[in-house]
């Protein structure tokens, strides 16, 4: 595994529109820094995230994927994040079988009021992924032309 200080991980963050995306906006409003390696995709609810999206990201070369939703009990759609939690628990239990370190994915609950938590979570996640290094184990599956 390459140990390279210059390594910039590719990280995809799925954020639900109501809590976590707003939390990410709040992190911006508060100028709470986190690395530019994190790119956010807005989804209406964490339950919109198909486990396939996460696998697709890994397949296309993402080094880490994080899913953020409303806190349990606070889902804008009442129960969406419970579905997300179950689906992700299921997915995570299979990741090592697929050849992905399970530390490369995570579910975090970030409310619209938790800008600081969003930034702290991203900083910590980027650090974890940077330490893990490049996601090489799925290289064979990548659709490289």
């Amino acid at each position, binding site marked *: 595994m390459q140990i390279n200080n210059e390594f910039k991980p590719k990280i995809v963050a799925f954020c639900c529109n109501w809590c976590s995306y707003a939390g*990410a906006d709040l992190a911006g409003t508060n100028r709470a820094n986190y690395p530019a390696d994190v790119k956010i995709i807005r989804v209406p609810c964490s339950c919109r995230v198909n486990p396939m999206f996460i696998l697709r990201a890994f397949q*296309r070369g993402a080094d880490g994927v994080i899913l953020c939703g409303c806190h349990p009990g606070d889902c804008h759609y009442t129960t969406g994040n419970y579905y997300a939690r179950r689906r992700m628990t299921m997915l995570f239990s299979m990741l090592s079988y697929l050849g992905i370190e399970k530390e490369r994915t995570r579910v975090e609950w970030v409310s619209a009021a938790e800008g600081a938590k969003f930034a702290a979570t991203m900083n910590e996640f980027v650090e974890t992924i940077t330490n893990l290094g490049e996601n090489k184990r799925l290289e064979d599956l990548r659709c490289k032309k």
Partner: protein
Amino acid sequence: MRRIGVFVCHCGTNIAGTVDVKAVAETLGKEPAVVFSTDYPYMCSEAGQNIIKEAIKEHKLEGVVVCSCSPRMHEATFRKTVQAAGLNPYLLEVANIREQCSWIHKDKTEGTAKAIVLGRAAIAKVQLNTPLIAGESPVVKRALVIGGGIAGIQTALDIADAGYEVDIVEKQPTIGGKMTQIDKTFPTLDCSSCILTPKMVDCAQNEKITIYSYSEVEAVTGFVGNFSVKIRRKARYVDETKCTGCGVCTEKCPVKNVPNEYNLGMDNRHAAYIPFAQAIPNVAVIDAAHCNKFKTGKCGLCQKLCSAGAINYEQEDTIIEEKYGAIVAATGYNPISVDKYDEFAYSQSKDVVTSLEFERILKADGPTEGHLQRMSDGKQPKTIVFIQCVGSRDTSGCGKEYCSKICCMYTAKHAMYCREKYPDTEVYVFYIDVRTPGKNYDEFYRRAVEQYGVHYIKGMVGKVSPKADGTLHVQASDLISNEQLHISADMVVLAAAIEPDKSARPLATMLTASMDTNDFFTEAHAKLRPVESPTAGVFLSGVCQGPKDIPETVAQAGAAASKVIGLLAKNKLSCNPCVSQSNEAMCNGCSTCANVCPYGAITYEDKDFSRRKDGSMIRRVAVVNEAVCQGCGACTVACPSGAMDLKGFSTSQIMAEVDAICK
């Protein structure tokens, strides 16, 4: 491939400061689909919007990407812009390069690179956007106000004034709320009942207002403009239509030892009771938990005495279901329980009271009929110590972290009252800070100090110890003179923090409205939409949104009412078109989607897929009710055959974004 236009906003220096906007526009301009790309200082300005409109026409754009602030801020603005230029408003995507890029990254190279990636993701997504048309749903011209305190009363009166029907649901037997218990209101010291009870009467007499007292909201379904609410009307064992409020039952009821809620348990009431003289509706209630008839089956005195024949022991809870266009939460507050603060000896001495209890002692219809007396021996206290911030601004985890806002003012009011009515009383107030931001508030507080000679001491009380002679030994520190104080007090009053009513959280769950960590309802925008909940059609009034005093509550109630009136004045509302749709060719009618749908938006239909006349093929397929679907997408992931997709956030669109980011 669609013809895409890219518009990069500088947002003054907000974006341009850490993102090279020219480079972003130039790089994105080289993307295969992009036929036009530009940048402008303020895209949301009229001039900026005109650039978009002209480019759509000139370059025959089929999709627009605006790289600017969060879509939560200006997506709606730009949708209107592209619509004005003749493009479907949903052929627009916003790349968030301000909140999620320029504001968090200090390095310009990194910021620019990220902005380009976010732009590419938006371009990839907009390629797959489909033109969507928002449906319309009718508006039920009736509002529901949950909570009948001053916030709910004012909201209901204002809505009714505009000519719309309003229902008030109040869990207590009477409307009025906390304000009925208060003696005088700061800073003008006018009598609380004198200003509130006329409003209560107005509510009862207004033909547009229906009061459901002793009732609670049981379930809420539906959406903005068309909520359906189940209300449980608790059995009061008195027929509201027959009871004249004569009070015979409440006088003759033999059960006399029930703690009186109106006086916070400081005296007793009968099992049959009317909470207070000015109650609205002025109808008795039988407290089944304490009534002899219900406990032993023997009594029935009130039924025999009631000349109106209103007593009905067989009455049961009834559930009514009503339709509403808008719902206002006005659930109010309660003081926190101060039992846990052992150092203040609240549970050890009757003479340590909370401020609301003190208010009851001062009020003419309270347990002492308005005479300042100790609850233990009925003697007039000579030394009173007020302790502020009991549970407020408390970061220890024991109380509340926030400032309860009203305590400084009511403590000044109480202190002033004691000195005015009983000039021989020594009054001490221990405070952390005195906060008096409000019109004529600081003058009021200064009057307490300068004119009435109340001793304000900056410092916290460490311990209150009840002594054998009935006095309370107060040990405190004066932070300014830095000395320990020992005061022998006759009465200690705790300014307990206020917290949202316990009913607020289950209600928020029913309304799918969001709450903060303190169980206050969250506004749609802290500054610009302070009386709306993020859930469309749900509005906030009073302390349920955050601590506030009466003038602020009334102002907010009026604001919430005007928002409700604005909503009810519309005949139709346009729906969110980003809803699920089922691909009938792929659906096998397995019901998985309907089982995960929190709104019951999915039903099944038998559809005829027969191609030839001889062979019939009828299959059961899912059908989404677009007016009910809220677009969460739970069904899209649950569907085992991949037949469900979410418009505006389709699987292919999200996959395209993933690909663009990981490229």
